[in-house]
């Protein structure tokens, strides 16, 4: 078993899974019907990515764990998703800013992985990069609209940008897992800023200063929000041992 490969692919899968779980929870809560369709679409894409990546991680691991055992039978500290994706959707501004930050990151990383040596991972990344390009353009459009909309929308967007910005540093924090397989996202921060900063500028939003940079997600140390997310997701599955659904 290639432990480094397993850990690497799990990170990608966990990011997508947690982002999907958050986005899926917004069904029926969108500000308009068109957006309900769009958010569900994005959640479905992310969930599809999570399923493909977790399935592959399980295969690499070779211990017989499939997507469901990995999603439903691991404890909180075994998930290695970034702290950004577990942050709560306090309002639509938070949802869109989180999507902007995360999809810009995913697009760059998947682009690199689609040209990588691991053929399975390259195939998943090649399919996913098209999906996240759409997520990114959706998030960009809303960021500009809401940043440069009304006073209230601008205030909400700036709050979301300020609150979520610190969590973006972790996406690019290098460690032995990132360096050990695939492509190390550490080098993507500049290109990521190249996408995000012009969008914030067009949206008349301020780019926050880089100071606090919380980490821990990649080592399974999450924020307090995470326990509830995992508890809810796993509750029914865990209540019934050894059955099919």
């Amino acid at each position, binding site marked *: 078993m290639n432990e480094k490969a397993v850990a690497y692919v799990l990170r990608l899968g966990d990011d997508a899974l947690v982002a999907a779980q958050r986005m899926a929870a917004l069904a029926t809560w969108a500000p308009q019907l068109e957006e309900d369709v769009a958010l569900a679409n994005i959640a479905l894409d992310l*969930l599809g990515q999570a399923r493909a990546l977790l399935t592959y991680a399980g295969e690499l691991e070779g211990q017989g764990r499939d997507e*469901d055992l990995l999603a439903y039978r691991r404890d909180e500290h075994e998930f290695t998703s970034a702290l950004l994706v577990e942050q709560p959707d306090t309002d639509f501004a938070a949802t869109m800013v989180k999507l902007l930050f995360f999809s810009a990151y995913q697009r760059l990383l998947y682009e690199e992985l689609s040209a990588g040596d691991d053929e399975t991972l390259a195939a998943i990344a090649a399919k996913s990069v098209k999906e996240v390009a759409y997520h990114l353009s959706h998030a960009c459009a809303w960021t500009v609209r809401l940043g440069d909309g009304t006073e209230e*929308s601008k205030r*909400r967007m700036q709050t979301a940008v300020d609150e979520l910005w610190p969590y973006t540093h972790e996406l690019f924090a290098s460690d032995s897992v990132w360096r050990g397989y695939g492509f190390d996202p550490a080098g993507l921060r500049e290109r990521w800023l190249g996408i995000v900063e012009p969008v914030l500028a067009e949206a008349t939003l301020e780019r926050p200063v880089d100071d606090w940079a919380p980490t821990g997600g990649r080592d399974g140390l999450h924020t307090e929000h995470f326990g509830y997310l995992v508890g809810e997701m796993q509750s029914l599955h865990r209540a019934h041992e050894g059955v099919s659904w």
Partner: protein
Amino acid sequence: MDPRASQPAFIPGAAELLAEVEAAESLLDQRGPAGAAAPAGGEEADLLAHFEAVIAADAKIEPRDWVPAGYRESLIRQIAQHAHSEIVGMQPESNWITRAPSLKRKAILLAKVQDEAGHGLYLYSVAESLGANRESLLTALHDGKQKYLNFINYPTLTWGDVGALAWLTDGAAVVNQVPLCRSSYGPYARAMVRVCKEESFHHRQGFDLLWTLSQGSPAQHTMAQEAVNRWWGPALAMFGPPHRDSTHSEKSMAWRIKRFTNDELRQRFVDITVPQAEILGLTLPDPALAWNSERGHYDFTPPDYEELKRVVAGNGPCNRQRLARRRQAHEQGEWVRAAAAAHAAKHSREDAA
């Protein structure tokens, strides 16, 4: 891969319903753009004669055609109720998205809820082609002036309810809606073709979910059976009051907005559903349910119409919760819609300058 692809057990009755949808669709295709438009600026009597001729020929009314006010109002009422049912109906199902017990089931459920939002959009557009507008229809929904289907006011207490709701109420919806694919109003008929195809998919998924539970552990089987017990009554009641008490039926049938009575459709649903329950290994909670060879139909106990009245009047288990949630989502989105409008206005001015 489509997350909804699964191993379908054979579902008796489902293929026949889909075949009817496809037959209606090919009729729509053959007909092409409707016959001659009504004479422009004609006298009301001429316009009415034209309208009646189109109905009598079983042709389609299109948005450009003159129609009697009553026809327009009936259709808007019916289509709005249908659209509202789609969007409020997302609630009992989305209740289980975050807790779906496998990632595949999560994807299936999410896709289903997304389809419903899509159906809602589509149907509001059809209502708009009759001169209504979405915003005022939503206001009527939020103010409790327009209704949605009764079953949505029942809770989804367990994962079994997700399956029973889809199998029984989507199954009933398909039976109800297949004849609407031949509605005299062209845009509605075309919308219903698409909606029926997707609903029939939802019905199949509900069947598949229940089948898996029914074949599973004793606890899972019980979960499925108890859910079916809860949803059978609300599903039967979806066809509305008996024909003799139905306030809108006569006129709607004359105008070919509606083609069968509530009772005929309810019977058809029962006849289709009983064999499906047998395949599922689940029972339907009606001791009087029995094949009647003389009639060629199943006998069954009618649903509790007093309960239906109470639920329609706003006193079902979840009416208040559903409406409050719907209003809350709308109010929460107000600042987003206002900002989008402000942004568009700003930039259209800039473009014009």
